[in-house]
């Protein structure tokens, strides 16, 4: 109920070939002071995107009008560090629905799936193919097919498959979340709790 259904996404992509992008870069701590989930997209990659006087840094990828789209393609170990879900909110709020990388940090991956962003993990080789395709043509489109668990570079037809567990896949395609599931099994949880030591 919390987010849009995700089935097939066709879009150009924004390339960010940087490794170990941690959640402090995605959204610096000083922007975590909100008590509502609003406006985080403005501060996505804040310190890479803006100078200290708030003028855009020209050489940062999000400030380059040639690149746009609902897919972010990033180097390995994306989303490491702090557990802040705000990082996933910022990415979603900015307009991305999918992040492609050759490796994701665990907590980020879980947070992304919980709010309707699809993390797509591909081999380092396929990631390089995507970066080359975008380099050749910044408007090149990727197709992310969740039901078939495939990602395709449309210009070249190159395709790869990705993993997602069946439960999360169902959730994403139906727009359900874990809270709906847990609420439906409250009695079972109550019974479990009554036997627990603590």
């Amino acid at each position, binding site marked *: 109920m*919390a987010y849009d259904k995700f089935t097939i996404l066709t879009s150009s992509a924004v390339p960010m*070939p*940087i*490794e*170990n992008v*941690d959640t*402090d*870069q995605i959204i*610096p*701590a*000083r922007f*975590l*002071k*909100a*008590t*509502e*989930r609003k406006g985080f997209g403005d501060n996505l990659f804040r*310190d890479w995107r803006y100078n*200290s006087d708030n003028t855009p840094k020209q050489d940062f990828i999000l400030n380059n009008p040639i690149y746009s789209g609902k897919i972010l393609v990033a*180097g*390995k*170990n994306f989303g*490491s*560090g*702090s*557990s*802040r*879900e*705000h990082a*996933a909110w910022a990415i979603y709020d900015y307009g991305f629905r999918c992040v492609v990388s050759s*490796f994701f*940090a*665990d*907590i980020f991956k*879980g*947070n992304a799936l*919980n*709010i309707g962003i699809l993390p797509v993990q591909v081999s380092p080789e396929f990631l390089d193919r995507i970066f080359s395709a975008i380099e050749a043509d910044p408007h090149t489109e990727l197709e992310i097919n969740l039901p078939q668990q495939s990602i395709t570079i449309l210009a070249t037809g190159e395709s790869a498959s990705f993993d997602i*567990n*069946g*439960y*999360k896949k169902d959730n994403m395609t139906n727009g359900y*979340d*874990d*809270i709906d*599931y*847990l*609420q439906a*099994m*409250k009695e*079972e*949880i109550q019974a*479990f*709790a009554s036997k*627990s*030591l*603590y």
Partner: protein
Amino acid sequence: MSNSPSTLFDKVWDSHVVRKIQDGPDVFFIDRHFIHEVTSPVAFLGLETRGLKVMFPEKTFATADHNTPTINQHLPVEDPLSAKQLKALETNSAKYGISHWGLGNPKNGIVHVVGPENGITLPGMTIVCGDSHTSTHGAFGAIAFGIGTSEVEMVLSSQCIMQPKPKKMRINVNGTLNKGVTPKDVILYIISKLSAAGATGYFVEYAGEVFENMSMEGRMTVCNMSIEMGARGGMIAPDETTFNYIKGREKAPKGEAWERDLAYWKTLKTDEGASFDIEYSYDASDIEPMITFGTNPGMGIGISQHIPVSAETGSGKSSYEKSLNYMGFHEDDAMLGKKVDYVFIGSCTNGRIEDFRAFASIIKGRKKADNVTAWIVPGSHIVEQQIKEEGILDILTEAGFQLRQPGCSACLAMNDDKIPAGKYAVSTSNRNFEGRQGPGARTMLASPLVAAAAAVTGVVTDPRELL
């Protein structure tokens, strides 16, 4: 099933699975839930939107720590956004019947310091918090890890989260640690070996003589940084050291309950012959005092070494160069003698009494270097009290240092404790990411002894020379 050898992790995990979902995660029951002001407001908002209640308010504990000031805590918090988050925590806790240790409460402090010191954290528990360093509590033989805000909402409304079971890793360190080598050095050494992503997908058990001989404070420092190599968490089997630490603490079981729980805790260890998905072993004598030179915690070296050249590291050349550029360092630079502008001792990694004792052991009889600004921040009011009672405050004052009030402080710089752009900090916290300690701040992670040596000399110094 019960006869085949199993690991400590399996024993605790399996006993908390409410339901297994086919081709999906486990529905995982949570014994203790900690919340703080930054990652909880949106979760409470979610409850309201859906019209849900808190299922077991007595299993959740709230403390204010992330954006609290470390001076003048008796005055109203100046920053309006921080004040609003603190107020939200207070109001939400009151509304749902959750115990709340706000600013000014004598039990207030950093969530991962106050949980253990008040006996809330116990062996065999499952513990979560919207903070990745929840892994700290694994020092007691608990399964403890950080979660996102959606999961905070799940725990509040159903006391469960959905978790795929991680794989199992064991890290053995045997032998005896050299002089001047602390638990912080042990974990920085391990992370430097495995890299910042080397344990992703795993839950770690730390085993071997070094951990057996370690205090609870030291074990907490080690488990705390498990997340910095990508692990979900880390744990150490409970033993007499653990039981002695817990006994008598405010919320710890007493009388018959103590005896019953103790009998259970003694079963919490990895059986002979139990298998792990992967195992690493290191020799304690290879470890020297550590320091980081880059922008992730895997970029650490022995303090006497030179910064590696990129070809020797596993990371891509451009990312490595970006990192060194940010730090203003070069390949093959020596770390010893690097200038230091700020020293920060504190955080849930090294903000416990033992850390301040270590710091004081070097400071004693010396003076703070003039070029250094030092922030000395206890992890909790209880630690602050101990610092005063043990005479450490006098040593600090004599050497020209000031003691601040408890909180996360410069660990993530959400309050006013920000390292200025371009300045170098030796910090006992856990993350050296770009801008973690303030926009443009340059962080070198190290132990309290290395921090003390830097604080009195003004440069990166081998603490073994001052002991």
